């Protein structure tokens, strides 16, 4: 029985890979790929010059931007973890699972745009923008961790022990190490998210980065860029033990999570602004919807899928090509160190920022977005597979170089590669939506337009569509993983 399953597996893995490449090739005619700057070399030169000779802002400016970035991240992740924990306790209920899936299907930038309408440009809006989607993610991961614990201790408890005490004495202690590790890891993602929120006006590192990069002041942008990089790259060193509660308290002191709550405004938003315009004025809703469908929803969906498929294949290629550069099975200490550094940079920077830089250099088309998504996610895949390949033990007489790569290592890592890539699929779709804010007409582009036009009814409709797409893609990826018997793997943001 097992052999027959495995037989189907190997063929199926090959077919799945082929299918994804084929789909990406079919997408090519619809993809808008072109270089539109007449002289990208000149811009690249200015960027390099700016990075090499940064122009420093005052220490205070930089320190405040860093402090705010951390404050949003810590408060958002903490609130998300608490809410997610609560949801995880009820994760067996279908309604809770759907709620969690919907929360995490909307990108934090879009949550931020929504909350800014409700609470103004306030700390609370920023904290909630991180906390809400993260609660959905935490609910899922915590819920799964609880399910994976050994049921024996629980069953051995006295029959009438309350659910809570059963949880505290059996489930929680077992799941704790994984729970804590995952939460800490999520903090890293939180810092990235917090920086990205600056792009729409919260006072984090991204605020300065976006303004300065967009206007081409590379030397002035460089310090903020380095600050973000160092913050994320060193996060695992300073973010542990007693530092975490201390940082959280400091975050609450630096930016208390409050907002000028205006009841009337919130009420109007919920009961009027997000109600489709024709319903408000008692007209026929169908033409309104068809207009939205033809003009925005359909082209947005197509562009989102085309961008995601192409990025996924670029990600896969880069991942497969780059992982040997950090694997102990290849190269020497120096090449590995260098490559490791490059990969850290690529995976620390938010895709949005990478796309932004690529856009400046290559001009407006889908190409910068594909490059950005491919590089960022490819670097993550390469890092993970590189790590796993270090556990391989090869024969004493195993081949070296390319022979070793193609015969010994790649075939052994392929299953893992496929599993990781499928996990990244959902992330790639989420990120394609927000790259729309850079002008690529994905769903995110139209969502951003709807917010810019203050037509919240359309914005909410488009957000729901992008959430449904997200959930559908996640479902597809899960089905393929199950078909190919790719076991559950670590989560990465």
């Amino acid at each position, binding site marked *: 029985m097992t*052999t027959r399953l*495995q*037989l189907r597996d*190997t063929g199926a*893995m090959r077919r799945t890979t082929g299918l994804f490449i084929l789909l990406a090739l079919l997408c090519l005619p619809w993809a808008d790929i072109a270089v539109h700057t007449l002289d990208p070399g000149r811009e690249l030169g200015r960027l390099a010059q700016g990075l090499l000779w940064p122009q420093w802002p005052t220490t205070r400016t930089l320190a405040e931007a860093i402090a705010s970035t951390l404050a949003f991240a810590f408060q958002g992740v903490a609130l998300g973890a608490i809410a997610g924990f609560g949801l995880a306790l009820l994760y067996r209920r279908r309604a809770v699972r759907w709620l969690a899936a919907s929360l995490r299907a909307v990108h934090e930038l879009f949550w931020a745009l929504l909350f800014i309408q409700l609470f103004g440009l306030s700390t609370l809006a920023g904290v909630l923008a991180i906390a809400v989607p993260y609660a959905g993610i935490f609910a899922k991961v915590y819920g799964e961790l609880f399910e994976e614990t050994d049921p024996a201790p629980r069953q051995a408890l006295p029959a009438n022990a309350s659910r809570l005490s059963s949880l505290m004495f059996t489930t929680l202690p077992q799941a704790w190490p994984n729970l804590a590790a995952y939460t800490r890891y999520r903090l890293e993602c939180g810092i990235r998210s917090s920086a990205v929120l600056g792009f729409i006006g919260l006072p984090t590192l991204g605020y300065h980065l976006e303004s300065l990069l967009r206007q081409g002041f590379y030397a002035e942008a460089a310090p903020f860029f380095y600050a973000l990089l160092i913050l994320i790259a060193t996060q695992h060193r300073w973010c542990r033990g007693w530092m975490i509660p201390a940082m959280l308290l400091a975050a609450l002191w630096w930016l208390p999570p409050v907002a000028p709550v205006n009841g009337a405004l919130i009420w109007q938003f919920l009961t009027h602004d997000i109600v489709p315009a024709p319903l408000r004025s008692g007209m026929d809703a169908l033409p309104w919807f068809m207009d939205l469908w033809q003009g925005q929803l359909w082209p947005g969906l197509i562009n989102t899928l085309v961008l995601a498929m192409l990025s996924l294949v670029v990600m896969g290629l880069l991942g497969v090509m780059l992982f040997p550069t950090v694997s102990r099975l290849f190269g020497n200490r120096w090449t590995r160190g260098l490559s490791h550094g490059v990969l850290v940079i690529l995976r620390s920077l938010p895709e949005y920022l990478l796309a932004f830089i690529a856009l400046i250099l290559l001009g407006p088309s889908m190409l910068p977005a594909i490059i950005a998504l491919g590089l960022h996610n490819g670097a993550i895949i390469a890092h993970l597979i590189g790590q796993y390949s270090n556990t391989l*033990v*090869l*024969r*004493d*007489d*195993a*081949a070296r*170089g*390319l*022979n070793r790569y*193609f*015969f*010994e290592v790649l*075939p*052994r890592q*392929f*299953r893992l590669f496929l599993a990781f890539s499928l996990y990244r699929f959902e992330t790639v779709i989420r990120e394609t939506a927000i790259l729309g804010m850079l002008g690529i007409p994905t769903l995110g582009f139209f969502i951003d337009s709807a917010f810019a036009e203050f037509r919240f009814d359309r914005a909410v409709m488009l957000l729901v569509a992008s959430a449904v797409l997200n959930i559908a893609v996640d479902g597809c990826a899960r089905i393929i993983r199950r078909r190919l018997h790719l076991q559950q793997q670590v989560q990465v943001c």
Partner: protein
Amino acid sequence: MTGFRLQQAALTVGGQTVLHDLDITIRPGERVALLGESGAGKTTLLRALREQQPNRIAWCPQQPGLVPVLPVFHNLYMGRLDQYATAYNLLNLIRPTPARRREVTELADRLGLGDQLWKPVEQLSGGQQSRVNLGRALYQQRPLFIGDEPVSAIDERQGADLLTLICEQHETVVLALHNIDQALAHCNRIIGIRAGRVAFDSPSDQLTSADIKPLYPSDAS
């Protein structure tokens, strides 16, 4: 030099000396069997011998080290990765060339794997995998052969056939074995290892099972 030579050698594993005072010279044409309890240091000794001239040796380790998702053909072909250009290897990875296909098919037939040639090795039984491991070493076509229990997972009759094949194809053969009868039947020199030293080293026709028995003190029988 085409044989092996160890003089006053001590072999260590992880900082601990496993074998002391080794004085072993193996001349071309000899067929040597290493006997001793598991953990006696046979594998360590084979490794040390291999390091003396790695490029002239067909190496058959005890851990098969196969690539599970690749078919038998490719796992066998891998024995010669160092003998062809990388581009040619890649071509054979994607689409095997007729010449190599013919050679490997012939070898697989001798190993009794003719029907399984295009099956991923993860779908084979333990014994079949063990034959692929041996086949990969045979396909290297080197003058010397070092094998660490090459036939221990294979049934006795077929194991004997394969040992004959090994001896036919190689000038010099060094094998770690646990089957005493096989050792006596196929090798002309036996080295017994016990308590970290060479207990005896003599032509196989001068040994009886009574000489060999002390090598296995923990054996209940």
